[in-house]
């Protein structure tokens, strides 16, 4: 569909990436393959912290205190992002920088996702763990504690892990909101996985306070050969700042599936930092529906040979109820041999929605036989929406295969005509074509049942918004 779609893209669309840019790099000479280089990015230079930073209170006495102090220093050194910073050129950080979020009305709760799945449910209300609403947080092969409980235990493993991957992920690109999170977060989970865990762990977010400014920090440690499926659903606060650090020992597997539904003027910054050791596999898929300003960063360090890291996202943005801006920023570092990485991001944008993708593959010297792939595509359902993509490859090994592609397009008119000629009404045909567009990202969810449920939720959203559009058109 995208071949044709790319040709029919409205002229107004600014696509930073060349449409259908495909770069195959199998460089004989290392210099040649360093085609797309970005300048080293340094953070803000203002010496004095902004008022917001001065007001931040970091817990002083837990076993993570040292890590928090370091994080605060990183944050003060970097400063909060400014719109002219290289990695914030397409996303204005103003709403994330604000002292407090604007209150956001609490709407009706969506029907629970994955309700039929046998899973371990952990409920957070405005970012605070609610044990009464949750299952007992114990299962074979996994030990789950709240961040607070772990922090209170001197010598807890978290003292070494908390903030470690986040700190490593600040180079070469600073990520101030992650440092801020490490400095001040008091809520979240410490998850230690020691074996293969059969039941998925499901974090469910609920809202109570209209103005909740949620800061969550989860630290996940997977021992050699351990395996976990981690699911996140629901909406955390009027504003969310979540950090997940996942450290995968050799042979470990982590499947992470997040379905982030936002409503109204919600804003959020999410970071996932993962370190993937030998033979390990990290797979993360995020479904994002709506929201005023969402920035999702994935920072993946492929550290062990023969390992696999996939990050994927499906984004549906409708600007009809207010501004929509969604930014996926990904940095995958290949530091080992024979590893595979995938970045698959698909955004469906309408009514003036804006999508951003900044994706980088860095192949370090010696990371031979790397297989890196990156695709970012936007489907614009009208002339008002916009997709900005910045794919980057930086390769210092000479026997690698890295490819990237980025396309921006509209619904393929021939495919639409084909479906309609079979009697499928236009609205419904568009929904089918949108699902078709998203299929490659959805395919990154390995589990059939989970994938089917996410597909159903997508379809529900699409049908609802198609109906809303035709109502607007009817009343206009």
């Amino acid at each position, binding site marked *: 569909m995208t071949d044709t779609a790319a040709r029919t893209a409205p002229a107004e669309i600014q696509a930073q990436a060349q449409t259908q840019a495909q770069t195959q790099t199998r460089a004989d000479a290392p210099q040649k393959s360093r085609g797309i280089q970005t300048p080293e990015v340094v953070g803000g230079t203002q010496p004095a912290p902004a008022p917001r930073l001065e007001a931040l209170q970091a817990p002083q006495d837990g076993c993570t205190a040292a890590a928090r102090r370091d994080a605060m220093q990183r944050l003060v050194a970097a400063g909060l992002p400014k719109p002219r910073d290289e990695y914030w050129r397409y996303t204005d950080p103003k709403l994330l920088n604000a002292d407090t979020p604007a209150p956001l009305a609490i709407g009706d709760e969506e029907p629970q996702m994955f309700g039929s799945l046998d899973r371990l449910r952990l409920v957070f209300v405005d970012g605070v763990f609610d044990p009464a609403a949750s299952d007992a947080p114990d299962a074979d092969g996994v030990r789950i504690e709240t961040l607070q409980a772990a922090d209170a235990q001197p010598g807890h493993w978290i003292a070494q892990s908390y903030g470690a991957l986040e700190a490593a992920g600040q180079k070469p690109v600073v990520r101030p909101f992650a440092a801020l999170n490490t400095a001040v977060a008091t809520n979240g989970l410490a998850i230690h996985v020691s074996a293969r865990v059969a039941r998925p762990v499901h974090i469910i977010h609920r809202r109570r306070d209209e103005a909740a400014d949620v800061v969550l920090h989860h630290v996940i440690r997977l021992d050699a050969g351990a395996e976990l499926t981690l699911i996140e659903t629901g909406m955390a606060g009027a504003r969310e700042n979540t950090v997940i650090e996942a450290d995968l020992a050799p042979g470990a597997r982590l499947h992470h599936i997040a379905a982030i539904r936002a409503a109204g003027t919600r804003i959020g910054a999410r970071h996932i930092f993962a370190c993937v050791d030998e033979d390990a596999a990290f797979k993360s898929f995020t479904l994002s529906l709506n929201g005023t300003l969402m920035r999702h960063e994935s920072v993946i360090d492929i550290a062990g040979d023969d390992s696999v890291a996939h990050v994927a996202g499906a984004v549906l943005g409708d600007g009809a109820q207010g501004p929509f801006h969604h930014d996926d920023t990904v940095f995958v570092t290949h530091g080992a041999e024979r590893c595979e990485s995938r970045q698959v991001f698909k955004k469906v944008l309408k009514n003036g929605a804006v999508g951003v993708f900044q994706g980088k593959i860095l192949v370090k010297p010696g990371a031979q036989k790397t297989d890196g792939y990156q695709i970012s595509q936007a489907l614009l359902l009208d002339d008002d929406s916009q997709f900005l993509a910045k794919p980057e490859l930086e390769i210092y090994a000479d026997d690698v295969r890295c490819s990237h592609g980025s396309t921006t397009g509209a619904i393929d008119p021939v495919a639409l005509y084909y479906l*309609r*000629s079979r009697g*499928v009404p236009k609205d419904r045909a568009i929904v089918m074509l949108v699902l*078709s567009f998203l299929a490659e990202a959805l395919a990154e969810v390995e589990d059939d049942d989970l994938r089917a449920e996410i597909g159903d939720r997508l379809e529900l959203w699409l049908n609802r918004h198609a109906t809303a559009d035709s109502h607007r058109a009817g009343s206009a």
Partner: protein
Amino acid sequence: MLEVTNLQVKLEDEDKQILKGLTLTVPAGEVHAIMGPNGSGKSTLSYVLSGRDGYEVTGGSATLDGENLLEMEPEERAAAGLFLAFQYPVEIPGVGNMTFLRTAVNAQRKARGEDELSSGDFLRVVRERAKALHIDADMLKRPVNVGFSGGEKKRNEILQMAMLQPRMCIMDETDSGLDVDAMRLVADGVNALRSPDRAFLVITHYQRLLDHIRPDVVHIMADGRIVRTGGPDLALEVERNGYAGIVAEGT
């Protein structure tokens, strides 16, 4: 059943007239073939009748059982009983063939005020009709037309036709890209659908397909018009002598 009268069509974006007063009547129960040289407007006729964008009707009319086709959306034409088997069926990744078929069948039933088929009933019917076209379960599960061979795509078109049970079937060069065996399968599928209350308009370059799908009437089209109409023998005449003579005589 299908009445096309003095139909004149130009490209929307270009000042180029494609159909220049085409008149054609296809009664129920009959199979009509349209033959003609490249660029005579055969495919345009099929697109305009089924409602594809990009064309502007500048004169004339087209009705199906008295209903004005040209004022209807493509899906309304489908629900009214019109079906076009595409020359180039479209690939739709990520949408299962079965899901697509069921959505189409039920959308048409709904548009006609009929009850939707239950998934059990649908499955039974689709399996039976797929089997006749040598379409296996795997092809039903795969995304629509993705990775299908030329022959599989055309058989899939006929399966859609068999499931949707249209009354007016237009087939746009269904024989293109088919080997002899695939053509026979397609023709058998079409012949099985022939009935007194259904009509076919078969667009083709070659007489070969018409050996398998025997037409009642053959029209020769050139430069946007029907230039000659006759019985099945007319197709044989084209095969022997080419279009040149007929076209020259008709214009």
